[in-house]
């Protein structure tokens, strides 16, 4: 059984880049989504503007932080930004949901929490941060419901706020599936990269072997000619033959790489000397 493959620096960088993109999209959605919420709630009596503005500002600031660090993003930075962004959203939603609940008219509660949980499943940099944020949206909705006056609780549609657990279940399933798929893709990419590296090494070894075959053949045949013409050279030529045998054994050792090469059209006329002369 082969040992597990350790993540190479390039794979870690790739993972950080992926996490950075998720955090970036999350901040963009906050920066765009919260002003829209403010716009829709402008006629709700008692609705404060500051939670949405605070959330939007946080989203923009975090967006700038991510853009500044775009050259060298780290997984930790992306996770921190993602969690912070969502924490501020939760604070804003706590305030705005209180105003919505108190307002006259029909309110479908905790829509933003449901949407947030699903968005976290798609955009979270890591499994843990995703679970924490999904848990945050669900927990906030339940606590907010419990904090509402009884009269306001009774005005909520049937099944609310417990419907959010169904959303949470879907969000967790999506999150786990996505994290697993990404890990699988990374593993496949790593195996593919290693396979390419092995092939390159095999080609190099075989090219070296092919390159040495002809000179070795020449030396061996030349030794046979000398042996025929100058019998007194036999002891010296025996040493030459033994040395050639050792080199042949080395060449033979390279043969194991033959099976690892997938020949392409470009390989039909390889020039081993090009490898040696470069």
């Amino acid at each position, binding site marked *: 059984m082969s040992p597990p493959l350790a993540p190479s620096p390039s794979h870690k960088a790739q993972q950080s880049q992926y996490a950075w993109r998720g955090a970036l999209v999350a901040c963009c959605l906050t920066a765009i989504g919260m002003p829209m919420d403010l716009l829709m709630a402008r006629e709700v009596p008692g609705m404060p503007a500051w939670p949405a503005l605070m959330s939007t500002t946080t989203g923009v600031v975090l967006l700038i932080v991510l853009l500044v660090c775009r050259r060298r993003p780290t997984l930790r930075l992306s996770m921190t930004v993602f969690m912070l962004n969502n924490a501020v959203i939760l604070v804003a939603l706590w305030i705005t949901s209180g105003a919505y609940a108190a307002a006259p008219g029909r309110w479908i509660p905790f829509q933003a929490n449901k949407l947030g949980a699903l968005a976290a499943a798609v955009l979270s940099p890591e499994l843990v941060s995703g679970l924490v944020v999904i848990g945050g949206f669900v927990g906030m909705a339940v606590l907010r419901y419990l904090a509402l006056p009884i009269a306001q609780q009774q005005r909520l549609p049937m099944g609310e706020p417990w419907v959010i657990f169904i959303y949470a279940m879907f969000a967790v399933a999506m999150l786990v599936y996505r994290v697993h798929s990404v890990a699988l893709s990374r593993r496949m990419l790593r195996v593919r990269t290693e396979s390419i590296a092995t092939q390159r090494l095999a080609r190099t070894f*075989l090219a070296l*072997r*092919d390159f040495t*075959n*002809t*000179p*070795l*053949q*020449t030396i*061996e*045949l*030349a030794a*046979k*000619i000398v042996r*025929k*013409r100058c019998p007194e050279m036999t002891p010296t030529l025996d040493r030459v033959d033994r040395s050639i045998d050792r080199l*042949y054994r080395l060449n033979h050792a390279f*043969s194991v790489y*033959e*099976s690892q*090469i997938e*020949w392409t059209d470009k*390989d*039909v*006329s*390889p*020039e081993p000397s090009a490898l040696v002369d470069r």
Partner: protein
Amino acid sequence: MIPIVGDRITAGAAHRLYPLRVMGRPTDVLFLDDDEDLRATFADLVRTIFERECHGIRSYGDLLDLGERALHCGVAILDINLGPQVPSGLDAYGWLRKHGFGGRIVFLTGHAASHPLVVEAKRLGDAEVVGKPVSLDTLTSMLEDMRPVAQHAPP
């Protein structure tokens, strides 16, 4: 000036000195390889150890220049890969068979058995493929087991 390899006269000089052998003989060996040292050494070996004439050529173009003389050799030993972007030993094989070469054809290669050119050479059926380095015993069996030209002549 007569070109000499070791204490032997080279194939080209021999043809000029001995016009009767210009057409080549069934015991002659045709050796195609792009490596000059191997070519010269191989020709020297064939003359020294096997006491036969060897026509060492480096390319498909040389084969065309040799023409009739090549067709009268008893055995042709062809390197498969003669370099990038040039006709290969397989092209030389095709030319020889097309022009009625009836002797034994052996491909000599330093490449992997799975290499496309080697696979193609093996598929030909009436030619052998031998990997470099070839031992003296193998070489002896190649040269001593020359079948008569008539046996391979095309119908």
